[in-house]
């Protein structure tokens, strides 16, 4: 790919943009130029201000100070619609899907094709035809007429991508587009990005997976605490320099892998089955180890964990805790048996977004810590919150802060705190570091290690191979609802894991990914830091 | 208004002793609270108009409230009136059960309480009641229906509204006479509740007419019901006759239009609301002045309005 985009006038210039939220100064005097035909990567830790910046560019927020110059004209739009009409389209960090609508309706939402001049009647046929065209171009496995809500997170993300490429935009912004995608889908995305570049579209690309930059980035800008700390062509800078400028310091061993001493069995499942999703899953997890669960997105790992946590009904199979079989009727009993479950979707199933940090942390433990059986113990609440704010180094203005105002990393720590307070001995972490920056990640891994050293047991579902390799003592791999293998420390390698995870689907072929040989290995190299 | 003040059988006035109504008030004007059943009913509005008119005439300050056909609301009004230390309270209770405690509280606070339209049987401190005998009205209605059906007889239907006690009395009076006096060739084949909603009355009658296209006569216990019934009868092209209840202007107008609505809506049991209004004011005033009332119970006789009656008393010329 040609790195430097043809050097012409910048299509967008942000000049001395400042944005303050009550309490927070998200951006300070940010000035960046974006050029057509170029992928401009925007990097920074959680809370650095990336999303805030692109929300300003796309008319979601109005900047407190500063100017936007798009196509050499100063712009001040009142709503996102105006930005869209100028040719600025965005894939937002949070999925923006209307669940009840069809895929086609989602792709063309807000710009439905109309019949005739007055565009009053809807031209459904055209809408579905064009949508299907875009989808097949991306080689996805669902139809334009499907209901968006029935699709998996990954599939919904592909709808978002189809949305922006079907608009003939001049500037395309992608805020962590790959965080919920599998390799094959990431491949498809990168192909589309290439296409857009050829049509001289400017692209702003936000990610926490620095390896991806190698494939897409032409130019990078690093934000820290809302200030631009580094601007460079990608080729002129090394990854460690980038990380250093993001974090503000050098981090040596990123995962700081620990050798744990595996002790007695904590959890064992035998022949666990949920019809249509996964079948005959059997494995054991031990005290004092981190068990990695690898696999491509959609392999069924989340469902397995939900079933162990008794959130999903199992069709058949046994669950043993500390060696004795237990029929868990519901999550309450799972918790009573000292299991904790940090789900993969923080916002929807992890947190009460409108509630305070404190209430989120203590929720599962309230009953256990009750005074006189029925009453909340406020002293204990304060004590335990402050205790874990310290232990986990959770950055929050206070106990009563509404949790949605915390950055992603801190939100994730709160969820961890919640299960530690619940005195969990078996921690199930599903995609624990999704959308979390390097610094927060390494802190999080340390906390995991501490927990295991203290005699805990962790089951970590992750789609990031390096993460699995970096922290897991042992890994089981799932493929299309089946357990396809187990690897111990010695056997663990990207190659082995990827083969277990995807060798089958390679045989199937016909998705663009399989087009070029062992690309899933190459692509798997893209994953993580 | 129609009729003159002298109706109402006068018993020898059993003057209850006047309680401690501030005697020094003589000369200066009295403040009296009136609570009508509901301002959503024309009937009560006509009473209220008469009350206001009469009060202006004899110089009483009238505080009028809407009882909303909700005893709890009426009870609140009474409390508020006591707080305003009025000289007397007159109310139209939702039903015979009335609002006992509130009335007794008012009485205990030395404020005489009167009732009109609907009596209150649960307390004995009511100074005087002025109102139509609705059972009697229902009986008149039945007799009128029988007359209208004539020798050939036929079927009859009644549109009631049991939620309102006065409507219920009319219904009971009607059914009672129909049972006792009706010849064998007259039968009550339909009985429905229109819930005070003319549109519901229309649907009821429409359904009756499909079941029995020759339905002879309908007794409607309130004018909204007549409006609804009339609409459906016209629509169905039936010859069913309507006997209404209340005697509101719209009824008089309809009956008077003999070759239009008057073809179906032929007679009306009237309660003479203006007379009820003026009489209750007279009694309150008399009591405040002299400590006596004409009688503990002053019934206002219901009477039948027909085309002839309208012409004789030239009600339409006004």
């Amino acid at each position, binding site marked *: 790919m040609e790195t430097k985009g043809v050097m012409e006038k910048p299509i967008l210039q942000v000049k001395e943009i400042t944005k303050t939220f009550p309490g927070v100064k998200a951006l300070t005097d940010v000035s960046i130029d974006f050029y057509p035909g170029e992928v401009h990567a925007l990097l920074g830790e959680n809370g650095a201000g990336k999303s805030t910046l692109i929300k300003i560019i796309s008319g*979601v927020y109005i900047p407190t100070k500063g100017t936007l110059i798009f196509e050499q004209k100063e712009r001040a739009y009142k*709503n*996102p*619609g*105006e930005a*869209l*009409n100028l040719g600025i389209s*965005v894939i*937002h960090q949070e999925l*923006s*899907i*209307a*669940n*009840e*609508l069809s895929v086609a*309706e989602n792709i063309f*939402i*807000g*710009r*439905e094709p*109309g019949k005739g001049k007055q*565009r*009053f*009647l*809807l031209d*459904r046929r055209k809408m579905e035809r064009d949508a299907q065209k875009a989808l097949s171009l991306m080689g996805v496995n669902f139809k334009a007429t499907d209901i968006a809500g029935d699709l998996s997170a990954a599939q919904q993300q592909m709808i978002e991508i189809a949305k922006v490429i079907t608009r003939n935009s001049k500037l395309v912004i992608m805020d962590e587009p790959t965080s919920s995608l599998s390799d094959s889908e990431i491949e498809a995305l990168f192909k589309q990005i290439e296409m857009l570049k050829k049509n001289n579209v400017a692209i702003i690309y936000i990610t926490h997976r620095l390896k991806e930059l190698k494939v897409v980035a032409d130019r990078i800008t690093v934000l820290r605490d809302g200030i631009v700390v580094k601007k460079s062509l990608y080729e002129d800078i090394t990854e460690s320099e980038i990380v250093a400028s993001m974090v503000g310091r050098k981090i040596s061993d990123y995962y700081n892998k620990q050798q744990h001493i595996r002790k007695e069995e904590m959890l064992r499942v035998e022949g666990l089955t949920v019809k249509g999703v996964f079948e005959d899953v059997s494995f054991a997890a031990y005290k004092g180890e981190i068990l990695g669960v690898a696999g491509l997105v959609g392999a069924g790992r989340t469902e397995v964990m939900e079933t162990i946590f008794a959130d999903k009904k199992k069709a058949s199979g046994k669950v043993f805790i500390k060696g004795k079989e237990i029929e868990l009727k519901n999550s309450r009993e799972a918790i009573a048996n000292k299991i904790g479950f940090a789900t993969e979707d923080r916002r929807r199933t992890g947190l009460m977004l409108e509630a305070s940090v404190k209430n989120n942390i203590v929720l599962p433990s309230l009953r256990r810590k009750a005074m006189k059986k029925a009453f909340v113990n406020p002293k204990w609440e304060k004590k335990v919150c402050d205790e874990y704010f310290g232990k986990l180094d959770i950055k929050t203005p206070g106990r009563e802060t509404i949790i949605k105002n915390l950055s992603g990393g801190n939100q994730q720590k709160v969820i961890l705190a919640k299960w530690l307070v619940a005195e969990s001995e078996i921690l199930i972490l599903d995609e624990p570091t999704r959308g979390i920056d390097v610094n927060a990640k390494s802190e999080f891994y340390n906390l995991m290690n501490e927990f295991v050293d203290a005699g805990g047991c962790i089951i970590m579902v992750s789609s990031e191979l390096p993460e699995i390799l970096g922290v897991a003592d042992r890994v089981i791999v799932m493929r299309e609802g089946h357990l396809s293998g187990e690897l111990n420390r010695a056997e663990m390698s990207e190659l082995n894991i990827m083969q277990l995870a995807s060798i089958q689907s390679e045989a199937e072929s016909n998705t663009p990914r399989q087009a070029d040989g062992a690309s899933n290995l190459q692509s798997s190299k893209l994953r993580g830091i | 208004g129609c009729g003159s003040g002298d109706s109402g059988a006068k018993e020898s006035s059993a003057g209850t002793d006047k309680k401690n109504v501030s005697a020094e008030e003589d000369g200066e004007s009295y403040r009296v609270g009136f609570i009508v059943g509901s*301002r*959503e*009913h*024309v009937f009560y*509005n006509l009473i209220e108009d008469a009350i206001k008119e009469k009060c202006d005439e004899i110089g009483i300050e009238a505080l009028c409230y809407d009882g909303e056909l909700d005893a709890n609301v009426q009870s609140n009004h009474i409390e508020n009136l006591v707080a305003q230390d009025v000289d007397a309270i007159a109310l139209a209770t939702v039903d015979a059960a009335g609002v006992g405690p509130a009335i007794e509280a008012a009485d205990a606070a030395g404020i005489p309480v009167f009732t009109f339209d609907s009596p209150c049987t649960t307390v004995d401190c009511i100074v005087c009641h002025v109102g139509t005998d609705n059972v009697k009205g229902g009986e008149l209605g039945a007799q009128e229906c029988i007359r209208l059906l004539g020798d050939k007889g036929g079927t009859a239907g009644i549109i009631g509204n049991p939620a309102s006690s006065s409507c219920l009395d009319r219904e009971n009076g009607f059914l009672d006479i129909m049972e006792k006096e009706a010849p064998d060739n007259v039968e009550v084949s*339909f*009985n*429905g*509740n229109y*819930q*005070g*909603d*003319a*549109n519901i009355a*229309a*649907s*009821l009658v*429409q*359904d009756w007419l*499909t*079941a029995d296209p020759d339905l002879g006569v309908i007794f409607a216990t309130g*004018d*909204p019901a007549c*409006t*609804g019934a009339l*609409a459906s009868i*016209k*629509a169905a*092209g039936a010859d069913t006759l309507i006997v209404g209840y209340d005697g509101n*202007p*719209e009824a008089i*107008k*309809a009956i008077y239009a003999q070759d*239009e609505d008057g073809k179906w809506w032929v007679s009306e049991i009237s309660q003479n609301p203006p007379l009820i209004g003026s009489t209750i004011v007279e009694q309150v005033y008399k009591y405040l002045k002299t400590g006596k009332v004409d009688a503990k119970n002053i019934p206002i006789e219901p009477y039948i309005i027909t085309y002839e009656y309208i012409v004789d008393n030239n009600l339409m010329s006004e």
Partner: protein
Amino acid sequence: MGKAKEWSEKNAVVIVLIVLIIFFGIANSTFLTPANIINITAQMSINAMLTIGITFVIITGGIDISVGSVAAFAGIFSAYIGLKFPKAPLIGILGIQLGSAIFIGTICGAFIGIAIAKFKVVPMIATLAMMTSARGLAYVVTDGQPVYGLPNKFAWLGAGRLITTEKMKNGVIPIITIFLVIILILMHILLSRTIFGRHVYAVGSNEKVSHLSGINVDAVKIKVHILCSIMAALGGVCVTSKLNNGQPAACDTYEMYAIAATVLGGTSLLGGIGSVLRAMFGCAIIAIINNGMNLMQISSYWQKVIMGMIILVAVIIDMAQKKEKK
């Protein structure tokens, strides 16, 4: 899964409807006579109009409990205008009736819509305020008296019938039913075949996304509430026409039956899902229960109880069907 099965999942309520028809058909001889069936279509028309409007609102994720009061107010209004033109020709009268409905509906709807869209008042409260106020105004302007003495032509829309036969001297097909069908077709097209319709679903499905996608969410909400109020006003005008008399107390609590009908018709109170056609099944159910129970001379007290229970059961059946699918 088979189209038929899918359909029955969407329309479990139709099964309830059929069961009711069979039941009343057996229980009462008059029920299935042509005359009575025609009556039912006429009787459900007014609730149907309110329901169509409310369906739009509910699909956007809102609610409107003011339709009954707005209907009454518009009905009164049309009656007063009608009084002013005793000699007007039929077409003129129709103009007055539609005109008043659109006029009052637009005012009330815009008021509600702006309160919700611009001042961010929760729909429940905004429409509660309108419910109380519009009812109050209806009484204020009439001073509690019905508005009577309307020209007979005024009754054509609500009470008139076309095609007189031997057996039915006053005509077979109620004009109000024809009127309803026309409105229904128009509204169905508006909801399912136009871009505006898409936006109604989009706003109900995900307001934030709709906004980010350049849909003017506020405008959609305001338009939908204007539309709903106009439909309510039309219903009110039809009541006035049917009674040939303007009642300030008209259509009291009708909103509840309209909402019930909408939900029975498979519209989700969470927004994003719904159809005006299916809502008509809901109206039919309610109308049939009323009519059937009237014919069977069931006490109006029991009618309330039974109505409540049937609505509940119907919705439960509907839910069960949908759950199966999940």
